[in-house]
């Protein structure tokens, strides 16, 4: 009885005119399956935890495996929602993909914390041209060329081997695609972080939540964040120095001091407007109440008009 009352209250709070929600007194029931991007995994875990507190009748299965898997699975009808951490391509939209932006994070460049030139790297940062020279053209070969000294240590460039949003977004910073990125391909976000942590001369990239420790909110042990020299003046200015903690970086992503890309929106993708009441209710909850849990989980909230757009895609006002 108490439960029914609680559900009633929540339904009342969720607002009037929500067509898909069952009549008051009938608790929402159903199953939802989700798969895809690692970047969204911790966030969705939190959302599921909170959502099922309110709607205990809904069971949600969550699997990670890369943005590519998410979109392939959802378009093949194997899951209800695909998590996608890159822009959705036209070919995928043509196949019926409906992309709803749910939150935001970023990809950051990473270097080894015991890189002998770390002080120079922190002071001067990396110009976009140097990064293009490293990852795209291969014109930049040594750490000296990156930080503007005569150091001849070769840079060991890493990238991701699996089809993923992080690599796609990092490449988008250079106006390119994942397949254009050069470097040793390593599988998975944790794998890439690990490869960079082991080689002092290496450079790589990671999603924010794999580069920073969730507890200490500092970069994970052995990893240092590569500052971007956005205005190309050869030094990291104070407004460019945003990498100390995860919170600091998140604030910079939110107000645009960290560029986009490599900051990017994260999407839930469905195949057309979902017909299941549970899926609809979950999506709507994520776009409204679920947003309250975004900052504490290490992500950046979307502006209200973006969220409204998502609701409109679901056929709601």
């Amino acid at each position, binding site marked *: 009885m108490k439960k029914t009352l609680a559900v009633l209250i929540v339904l009342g709070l969720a607002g009037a005119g929500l067509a898909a929600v069952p009549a008051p007194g009938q608790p929402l029931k159903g199953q939802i399956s989700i798969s895809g991007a690692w970047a969204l995994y911790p966030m969705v875990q939190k959302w599921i935890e909170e959502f099922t507190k309110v709607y205990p009748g809904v069971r949600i299965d969550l699997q990670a495996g*890369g*943005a*590519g*898997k*998410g*979109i*392939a699975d959802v*378009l093949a009808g194997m899951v209800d929602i695909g998590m996608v951490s890159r822009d959705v*391509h036209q*070919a*995928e939209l043509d*196949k019926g993909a409906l992309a709803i932006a749910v939150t935001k994070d970023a990809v950051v460049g990473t270097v080894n914390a015991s890189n002998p030139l770390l002080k120079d790297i922190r002071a001067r940062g990396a110009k976009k041209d140097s990064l293009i020279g490293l990852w795209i053209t291969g014109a930049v070969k040594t750490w000296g060329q990156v930080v503007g000294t005569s150091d001849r240590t*070769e840079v*060991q460039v*890493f990238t991701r*081997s*699996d*089809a*993923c949003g992080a690599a796609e977004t990092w490449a988008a910073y250079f106006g390119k*695609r994942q*397949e254009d990125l*050069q*470097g*040793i*391909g*390593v*599988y998975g976000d944790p*794998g890439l972080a*690990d*490869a960079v942590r*082991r*080689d002092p001369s*290496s450079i790589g990239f990671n999603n924010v939540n794999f580069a920073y420790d969730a507890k200490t909110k500092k970069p994970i042990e052995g990893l240092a964040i590569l500052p971007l020299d956005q205005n190309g003046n050869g030094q990291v200015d104070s407004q460019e120095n945003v990498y100390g903690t995860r919170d600091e970086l998140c604030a910079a992503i939110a107000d645009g001091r960290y560029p986009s890309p490599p900051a990017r929106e994260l999407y839930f993708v469905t195949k057309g407007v979902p017909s299941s009441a549970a899926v609809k209710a979950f999506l709507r909850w994520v776009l409204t109440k679920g947003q309250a849990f975004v900052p504490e989980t290490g992500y950046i909230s979307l502006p209200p008009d973006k969220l409204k757009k998502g609701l409109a895609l679901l056929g709601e006002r």
Partner: protein
Amino acid sequence: MNGGKISAFRLLKDNLARRSMFVLTIVPGLLVALMVVGLLLRSKAILAVKPLSRLLFSSAWHPLRGEFGLLPFITGTLWVTAVAMVIAVPISLLAAVYLSEYAPRAVRETARPIVDLLAGLPSVVYGVWGILMVVPFVSDQLAPLFGTKSSGYSILAGGIVLAIMVFPTIIHVSLEVFTSIPHALREASFSLGATRWETVKHVVLRKGGQGIIAAVVLGVSRAFGETMAVLMVVGNIPKVPKSLFGAGYPLPALIANNYGEMMSIPLYDSALMLASLVLLVVVLVFNVLARIILVRAERKAE
């Protein structure tokens, strides 16, 4: 009369059993044919716009520009497999010889289950172990030894991990072969004054030759198809490999890594299906070749 009826019924039963078992036997064979047909149908789209020779022998892999050259992946597969076999075959054969000819019974009986256990480990375990041990070993020890630089994510690392994965297969099968060789043969050899090693060389290895080939073929087949463990250490650069210390990109890794992009780029799914078909054909051709060698060796022995 009654007895005749029963025997007719029993004959019918026998007939039925024979026929149904025949059907069950051809099912696996049919499955292979079905897979080939299925993959062929799915790769028709790309074969319709590009000649097969261009797809197989071009090394340009740029799906976005519509270039699907599979050469880097085919050579990557061959390199990694070759390295694995060069390492695995001598070590496993000598281990099997030791276990069957020299080792005391207690050692043999302990070693067997351990070897079989190795065969049962999931391949991701080998992959993680490869990243932790083999990749640093290649970059910190082997590469400096040969005077080059390597990130460690290389053909060599992939080959070493693969070699360790095929050890148990080759050891297990060749051990079976060696133990099936009649003791009388060895005793005859000893009675002529041969040492143990001479007996191994002239009797055991010679008599078990075909079995050894079968063991190696099994190992190679496993090596060709192994995906996860290799993918995690091999570096995945879509270029024709130039050095053991450079990265490679075997076919199974290509398929596993890019499964997700299938929907977003035209012809990509078709290209991946073609890659699977190529892998299947390579394994088939290899098995058929090995079979021919085996039959020839058998004839010679007769």
